[in-house]
Structures are given as C-alpha cells and as structure tokens.
C-alpha cells in the first residue's frame, strides 16, 4: 500500500464522512464547527500531499472498487480516480478557498447569527459541496464526473435557497432549471459517447475516439461543450449566472463564484486535451471566449449592485481561461491553468470583501454606499488589493496570468488570436474601470452624496431577513469581526503568493500543461494500473 493509493480518495471521503458527522451533531453547533474545520483542514493537507506526489511521480491512477475488466471489453470497471499536476493544483487551490470561506461563514455566524439561522443544514451541505468539487477534479470516468457534478449541484441548490425567502426561491428556480438542463445535455453526451465507443473511462476513450470519424468526434465534443459551457458560464450560455448568484448569503456566493464555474472550465480543459484534441472546434471556442469577455464586462458596467457587478466580471474573466484553452498550445494551456488558480482566489476574496461591506455599511448597492475609505481604511485596503489584482495591475497575479495568455496568443499569430489579444486588453481596461467606479462611489464619495439614504437594519448572516431603515438610524455594527477578517486577509495573502512565487508556479503550470498535452502519460498511467 503506497502513499498515493491512501491519499487519492481522501479529498472526497473526508468531506463526505464529515458531512455525515455534522448531520449527527446537528444539535451541537460547536461540535459541528469542529468537525467541519477538521475535515476541511485535513483536505487541505491531503491535497498539498497529492500536489507534491504528483509533481514527483507524474500521473497517478487508482481504481476504487476495481472489479477488473468487463466481459465485453469496455475497459476497466470501477471508480477511476486520477491525479495529475492539473487536478492536484485545482484541488489545492479549491481546498484552501473552501477552508477560508467556511471560516468566514463561521465567524459571521458566531458574530451576527442567532438561534433562527439554519446552521445545522449549512455545514453538512457545504461539506457535500466540497466532496463534489474534489470528486469532479479527481474523476477519471465521464459518468463519475457526471455524478460528482450532480453531487455538487444538489448541494449548491440547497445553499442557494437557504432560508427559502421569496427572492431566493425565485432565483433558485432559475438556477435549478438551468443546471438540470445542462446536466441532461451532459447525460445525452455520455449516451452518445458510449454509443460511439462502448466505454466511458477517459483513458480508454482517448484511445478509442481516435478511430471515430472526425465529424462524429466534433459532434460529440460539441454536445459535451454545451453541457460544460453552461456550468462554466461561457457566452452565450452565461445569462443565468448574474441573476442567480447575488441573492445568496455572502459566503455562499463567494464559494460558488470561486469554484463552481471553474469545475466547468476544468472539465472543458480535460475534454479538450485528453478526449478530443484537434476536434476542429478551436476557432468556435476562440469566438466564444472573445464574446464572453466583452459581453460580460459590458454587462458589469451597467450594474449598480456590487454583487451583480462582480458576477458579471466573473463571467467576463471565464473568457480568458477559454481563450487559453482554445489556443491548444502548451503556453496557452499553462497560462489558462495559472489564470484559473488566480481567478478562484481573487474572485472569492472579492465576494468575501463585499460580505464585509454589506455587514459594515448595510448595503451592497452603489446607490447606498459611500465614505467607506474614511469609515474603515482597513476595509478599503482589503478591497483595493484584490480589485487591482482582478483588473490586472502589475505586479499582481492577474497581470502575470494575462501576460502569459497574451504571449501565447501572440505566439499563435493567427488573425483571430490577435483579435483575442486585443479583446483581452480591452476587457482588462474595462475591468479596471468597473472596479475603480466601485472604488470612487463606495469608498471616496461622502455617504451623504449617495442617492439613497437607506440601509439594512442589522447585519444578516445566512438569512436575508432584514428590513431597510434610514442610514442615520442604523446602529453601529462595531469593528469587523476577526473571524471574518482573518480568512479574507488569508486569501489575499495566498493571492499574493501567486505573485511572489510566480516563477516556480508558472514552471509548475508549464509542467502541468505539458503533462496534460501528452496524452500517453495519462492513458498509460490509468491502464497500467488497471492491468498490473
């Protein structure tokens, strides 16, 4: 029994067992918190171990419940889990974000929550979501990927509609319907792939799809791409996102924005490199990337609510990752992987900061904000660092990721790639405009100049049950609680590590991209494990 065989299933197992434990401890909030933090802390350690192992040993595969070869020659039966550098990096970043967000949520609950908060549901569901996210990164089989998507989606349905207020039920309906349609399209894709090849194991598929006619291959890829594109919010399948994310509680929005779309991007990377290289849809992906960037950021300019504004920038920046993937070169893929890591961290941080703004100022609408820089210089600082990072100001990681992608685009050299480079510069500038608009209105403008003099009466934790009162009558909520501030600061620090250690990290993502492009390593790792 070697280390990798022990560690590989743990990122799914620990949160699942943790979820069961927190269910049993439903009436003891303190025990629930201890179990949750213990489980997610252990996942961070395990993922870091997997990152180290995968960097040393290359692709590692494990067949959980390996029932051997099936009679009909359908490839190995069982639950195939695969760790390579790409999935290990995704899991490390995700587990750090999951831990930080749950710390924020617990800090918020201890300070602002009360007896009526549905905390006993929140923590188990959150752990199931974590298991689904890690499982999706580990899955070495299309059907397992589908199941992991469903696990994380089902958990996200509960988290999004927590408290079931009018507003949340309304957006919950959009979100559930769109997600279900995308899952059904994924399932249709799975059925068609199975019809064409007779297997769903990704390594086996990579071999067998070679003998499928190119037209069929492109059609299969297109079906899967629509399914993943809805999850990743790629234009024109992105319209659901800005409507559904902003109404959820701050920690829930933060973790959704950071992780759920990136799981879709990860699935696109996997399908594009491993299953369907040269499927002939790269140009279409490039156009989709360009439109995602531009339409997303133009939508952000029109918004007055910071949460909606950030949701639109989230959609817009998915375009950068799709751009990197669509170039189908090692440089482009490396840039895309770095950008995914950067974007998970920065987008989650920004949503957590908005949670703090909402708590301190009682609003997230620019119509109701002002004077925050004077009221709380610390809040201004923790907003401006990730905001500039998102806008791509040197020396932050957003700048490094964008430069890597533009370099890859310039190396590609085709007219469309140059248009995309131009589009990404424009998007970057407009992002900077959007965040500086938030900065000027919410932080610099005196509060009295804001058009609406209303604010929510009290800070809310998980439920949106506060009413509006005149801002002058709002009671002082005190300083920002350490339990909320520390995780936010921690995420900003991790985001800065991406800048400080950019050299080693870029060389790691280069190795990850090389590994992902070299399909034989993945195939031989999975299939040699199946027939020892």
């Amino acid at each position, binding site marked *: 029994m070697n280390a990798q065989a022990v560690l590989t299933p743990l990122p799914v197992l620990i949160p699942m067992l943790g979820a069961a434990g927190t269910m049993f401890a439903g009436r003891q909030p303190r025990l629930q918190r201890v179990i949750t933090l213990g489980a997610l802390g252990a996942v961070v350690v395990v993922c870091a171990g997997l990152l180290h192992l995968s960097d040393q040993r290359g692709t590692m595969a494990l067949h959980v419940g390996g029932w051997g070869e*099936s*009679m*009909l020659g*359908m490839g190995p*039966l069982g639950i195939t889990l695969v760790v390579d550098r790409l999935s290990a990096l995704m899991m490390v970043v995700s587990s750090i974000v999951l831990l930080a967000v749950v710390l924020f949520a617990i800090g918020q609950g201890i300070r602002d929550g009360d007896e009526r908060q549905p905390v006993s549901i929140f923590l188990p569901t959150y752990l199931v979501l974590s298991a689904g996210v890690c499982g999706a990164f580990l899955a070495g089989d299309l*059907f397992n990927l589908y*199941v992991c998507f*469903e696990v994380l989606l*089902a958990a996200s*349905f*509960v988290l999004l*509609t927590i408290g*079931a*207020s*009018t507003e949340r*039920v*309304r*957006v*919950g*309906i*959009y979100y*559930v*319907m769109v997600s*279900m*349609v995308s899952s*059904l399209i994924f*399932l*249709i894709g*799975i*059925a*068609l792939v*199975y*019809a064409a090849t007779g297997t*769903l194991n990704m390594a086996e598929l990579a071999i067998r799809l070679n003998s499928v006619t190119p037209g069929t291959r492109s059609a299969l890829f297109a079906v899967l791409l629509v399914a993943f594109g809805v999850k990743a919010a790629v234009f024109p399948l992105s319209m659901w996102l*800005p*409507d559904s994310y902003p109404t959820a509680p701050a920690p829930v929005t933060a973790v959704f924005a950071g992780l759920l779309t990136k799981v879709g991007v990860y699935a696109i990377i996997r399908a594009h490199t491993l299953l369907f290289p040269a499927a002939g849809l790269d140009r279409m992906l490039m156009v989709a990337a360009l439109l995602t960037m531009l339409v997303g950021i133009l939508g952000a300019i*029109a*918004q*007055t*609510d910071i949460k*909606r504004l950030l949701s639109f920038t989230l959609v817009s920046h998915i375009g950068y990752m799709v751009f990197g993937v669509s170039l189908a070169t090692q440089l482009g893929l490396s840039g895309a992987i770095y950008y995914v890591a950067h974007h998970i961290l920065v987008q989650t941080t920004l949503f957590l900061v908005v949670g703090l703004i909402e708590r301190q100022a009682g609003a997230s609408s*620019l*119509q109701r904000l002002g004077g925050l820089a004077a009221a709380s210089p610390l809040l201004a600082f923790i907003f401006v660092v990730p905001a500039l990072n998102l806008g791509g100001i040197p020396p932050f990681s957003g700048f490094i990721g964008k430069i890597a992608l533009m370099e890859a685009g310039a190396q590609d050299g085709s007219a469309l790639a140059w248009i995309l480079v131009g589009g990404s510069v424009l998007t970057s500038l407009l992002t900077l405009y959007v965040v500086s608009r938030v900065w000027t*209105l919410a932080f610099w*403008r005196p509060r009295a*100049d*804001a*058009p*609406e*003099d209303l604010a929510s009466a009290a800070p809310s934790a998980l439920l949106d049950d506060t009413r509006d009162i005149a801002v002058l009558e709002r009671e002082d909520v005190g300083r920002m609680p350490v339990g909320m501030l520390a995780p936010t600061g921690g995420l900003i620090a991790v985001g800065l590590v991406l800048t400080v250690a950019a050299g080693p990290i870029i060389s790691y993502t280069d190795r990850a991209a090389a590994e992902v492009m070299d399909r034989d390593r993945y195939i031989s790792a999975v299939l040699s494990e199946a027939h020892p």
Partner: protein
Amino acid sequence: MTAFLVPLLLIGGLVSAGVYLLLERNLTRMLLGLLLIGNAVNLLILFVGGPSGNPPVRGRVSAGQTATADPLVQAMILTAIVISMGIAAFVLALIYRTYRLTTEEDVENDPESERVAHMTAEEAAAVDEGRPVPDLSRDTDEADALDALPGLEGSR
C-alpha cells in the same frame, strides 16, 4: 452497433414534448418537461447498450441468446433515475414554496435585470454621476424624500 428506428423515434418524441413543456413559464409543466427529457435520455442510454433480448444474468440463456446484456447501462440508468428523483423532489418543494409565498407558480423575470435593461438614457446618466435616479412613475403630488435633495427641489 445496430440502431433501431422505433426506440429512436420514441426518444425523439419524448425529448420534443419535454422541450415544449420546458419552454412554458408554469413551474409544474417545466418540471414535467425535465422528467420527460430525463426519461428519454435514460431510454437512449439503454438502447446504446446493445440489442434487446440478451439475458441480464451471466451464464443464463434467454430465448436462445447467450451473450450477457451490458450491465453498465443498467447501472448508469439506475443512478440517473435516483438523481432525477431527488432533484424532482427538491423542485416540487421549491414550487410549493413559491406558491405559498406568491400564490402563483410562474417564472418571473429578474427585476434587477429588467430595471437595468429598461433604464432610459437619463436614468443611466444619473446612475453614472451618482445623482438620484428620477423615478417618474412613482412621482405623486405628495412631498417625498427626493424633493428635499439639492437640484431636485420642486420636482412636484
């Protein structure tokens, strides 16, 4: 693989009926649409698993057929059925909750999207410059908070 026309037509019919229902605004019909498409996809998975008539148990003979039926497709369909049942229960709970809260069960447009989409140039300029958005529709002869703001005195 041999394709059979009748099941494929059946699947196509179910999907098109499902899509038709999904395009409604009524939530119960949307759910029924989802379930129809889900069943169609399950049938599709079943039919891609091989011809009918093979015995599902290994080592048995069924009507002269000796090749074992593909066990994977059955496992996948079972999983998909369980998932769609769970989600359907959740959607039904949401529909009931919507009905309790609003006494209707139609999907509404997002109010914030509507507001931003139908902003006039004047309102958009007001938002950009941080001025109060002129709310013409709700202006009455009564004195209100907006009338006290500088630059808007006497708007009534």
